[in-house]
């Protein structure tokens, strides 16, 4: 089993499958990044292919059980391989420079001083081991010896990232709230507009309340969104703290991260009035999504308990000093089925009579979209990134290098130098560089011998 999971064939197969899955994830539309209408139309137009894709979970590949199985196999392979890599790295690190390298180049020189060579390679960041064997002087220059741990570090980083991702997949909690200016989120799971939770995650009920004091947004001259900001009060069991939440910067409260969403808009409150004594007006909130600067906000929705449908266009006063509408007006079309039965342009407090019904435009307030995320494993993911990157640098950029120069004295004061280099990443450049340095240090009389 151990051999099977670390065999090159198995690793290549697993990686090949992973790459194939990634390609499928790009080519087949996924639930996470395609609208629901796309799948509805697919189901209608090609029911058999749709059924097959759903059955094989190909429309949500990266959360499918078989993808999870593939990741587990990869995890197993990396874990077992790490054991072997640890033993190899430990042995390589413990080994002393032996001087048993086969000479690759020999040079003949009239002047040789070990100290000059040691100083030259010290400037290049090499450490030296010097010893004598008979009449020969052996110099072993080496650097980055610790980086024999590179491969182990690199693969440990991958292991940590994969484990942290699986834990995230199992336990992460995320929820979206639409918080109207002046309202409070009480931390109940039912107060979220939508939630997305890991397969083993429990209820998502943050132990704090969020009150939206003010919502601000501004645009660039090109109409693009410049800044989105929510002025909040976070109430943690009686201790209320003001906080500003800006798009792009999260807040962390009791292990829950709060993000400013780019999804925001206005909430319109319209009441259906009644003349019957004892009966109260029926207020309803409608949500209008934010529109580009200078454009009206639009929304269409049924009015509950009636047959009416309301098509709304809201014109906020963007020129006002405050983002809160200064001189707003709401244009409403009242529809019954497809038939328009009335229309009105209203300011807050205005009423409109449609057939027998009276509607009052009560108020309009901006709402801010907030994303709350509970994921305890993020530090683990970041640790994995750090270890993985460190391993890559150790393995591929600052890899261990060893140079052996042995000098044997000849007659008439000449020396024969035997040069050898050792590195796993190709030795030609290092060898050329070594010979060039020796030529510079030992003078022009130095020749290849």
């Amino acid at each position: 089993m151990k051999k099977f999971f670390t065999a090159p064939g198995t690793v290549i197969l697993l990686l090949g499958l992973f790459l194939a899955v990634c390609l499928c994830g790009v080519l087949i539309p996924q639930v996470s990044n395609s609208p629901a209408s796309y799948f509805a139309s697919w189901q209608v137009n090609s029911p058999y292919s749709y059924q097959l894709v759903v059955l094989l979970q190909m429309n949500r590949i990266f959360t499918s059980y078989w993808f999870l199985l593939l990741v587990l196999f990869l995890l197993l392979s990396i874990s077992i391989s790490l054991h072997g890599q640890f033993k190899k790295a430990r042995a390589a690190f413990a080994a002393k420079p032996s001087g048993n390298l086969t000479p690759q180049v020999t040079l003949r020189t009239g002047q040789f001083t070990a100290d000059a060579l040691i100083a030259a390679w010290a400037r290049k960041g090499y450490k030296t081991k010097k010893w004598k064997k008979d009449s020969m002087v052996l110099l072993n220059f080496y650097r980055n010896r610790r980086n024999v741990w590179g491969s182990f570090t690199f693969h440990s980083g991958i292991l940590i990232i994969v484990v942290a991702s699986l834990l995230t997949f199992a336990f992460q909690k995320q929820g979206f709230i639409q918080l109207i200016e002046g309202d409070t989120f009480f931390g109940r799971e039912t107060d979220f507009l939508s939630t997305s939770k890991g397969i083993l995650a429990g209820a998502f009920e943050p132990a704090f309340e969020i009150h939206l004091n003010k919502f601000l947004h501004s645009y660039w001259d090109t109409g693009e969104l410049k800044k989105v900001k929510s002025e909040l009060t976070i109430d943690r069991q009686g201790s209320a703290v003001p906080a500003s939440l800006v798009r792009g910067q999260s807040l962390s409260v009791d292990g829950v991260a709060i993000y400013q969403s780019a999804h925001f808009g206005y909430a319109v409150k319209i009441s259906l009035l009644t003349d019957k004594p004892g009966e109260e007006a029926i207020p309803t909130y409608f949500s209008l999504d934010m529109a580009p600067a200078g454009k009206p906000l639009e929304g269409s929705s049924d009015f509950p308990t009636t047959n009416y449908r309301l098509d709304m266009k809201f014109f906020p006063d963007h020129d006002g000093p405050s983002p809160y509408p200064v001189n707003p007006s709401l244009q409403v079309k009242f529809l019954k089925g497809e038939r328009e039965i009335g229309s009105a342009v209203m300011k807050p407090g205005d009423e409109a009579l449609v057939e027998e019904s009276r509607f009052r435009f009560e108020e309009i307030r901006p709402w801010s979209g907030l994303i709350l995320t509970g994921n305890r494993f993020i530090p683990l993911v970041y640790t994995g990134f750090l270890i993985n990157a460190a391993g890559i640098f150790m393995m591929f950029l600052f890899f261990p290098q060893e140079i052996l120069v042995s000098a044997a004295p000849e007659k008439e004061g000449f020396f024969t130098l035997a040069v050898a280099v050792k590195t796993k990443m190709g030795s030609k450049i290092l060898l050329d560089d070594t010979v060039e340095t020796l030529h510079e240090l030992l003078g022009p009389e130095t020749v290849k011998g």
Partner: protein
Amino acid sequence: MESTTLLKFEIILHWLALFIYIGAAVCFVQGVIFKQEKSFSLGMNVFLAGLLPHSLALLVRWFYVYHGPYLSKYEVLSSNAWVTVVMFLFFSRRYPKIRFSGMFVAPFAFFQVAAALFASAAIKRFPASFKVPWLVAHILFNKLAVGAFLIAIALMIAYALKSRGSKMPSLARLPDNEVLDEYIYKFTAFGFCFWTITIAAGAIWAHESWGRYWGWDAVEIWSLITWLLLGSYLHLRLFFGWKGKRGMVVLTVCYAVSILTVFFLPFLVNSLHSEYFK
């Protein structure tokens, strides 16, 4: 000065850089064909001269759009070319043996600047979610990785020409294939290191901004595929000794995917990333 005047000035500077880069390419080609060391030195100086208007163009744009050059096809391609030229000048001073590859790097630079000039130079404003320090790391390391990849590709072309047994005597002057192979490896490893930081910094940025570090977005997936392929090549070389032609075949596939990921996909697919490139 008005922004339209600045925009025109910046475009003129870009055209100037483009023509100087063409001149640099000519010098490098001349150096290889006529075996003139002087032409290489001249090519380096011309390249450096092209970098001046190019740098000025990017600075002018930075000044009037209030953000770095990374928010549209125009800015992305131009800054990629700039980083490639800077990296080439830096590394070819450190490793003079690779100076000849300027004959491929210079065309890479002017094609990118030309593609930028034919794209829209319209200003895109800085989105709200971009005010994060991780953005700097994500973009900076991405550009360094792309620069390293392009230099490696230039050396691969030379390797391919040499190993095909071309009878052009001028090619005999280029470094041995063994040396080229090692330089290709070095630049690939360099690019791979920075590609890793790009992905990690992007993931951290995504988490800080949107609450998720990986969203299986099309560009994210292709970046991961590129990373896996390049990592596989480096592993094959390190653990299985895949050097020379065998390694080059794998690397050709890796770079084909890299080019697709860096230069085409962000402009073609619907992705969170592509919003800022189009």
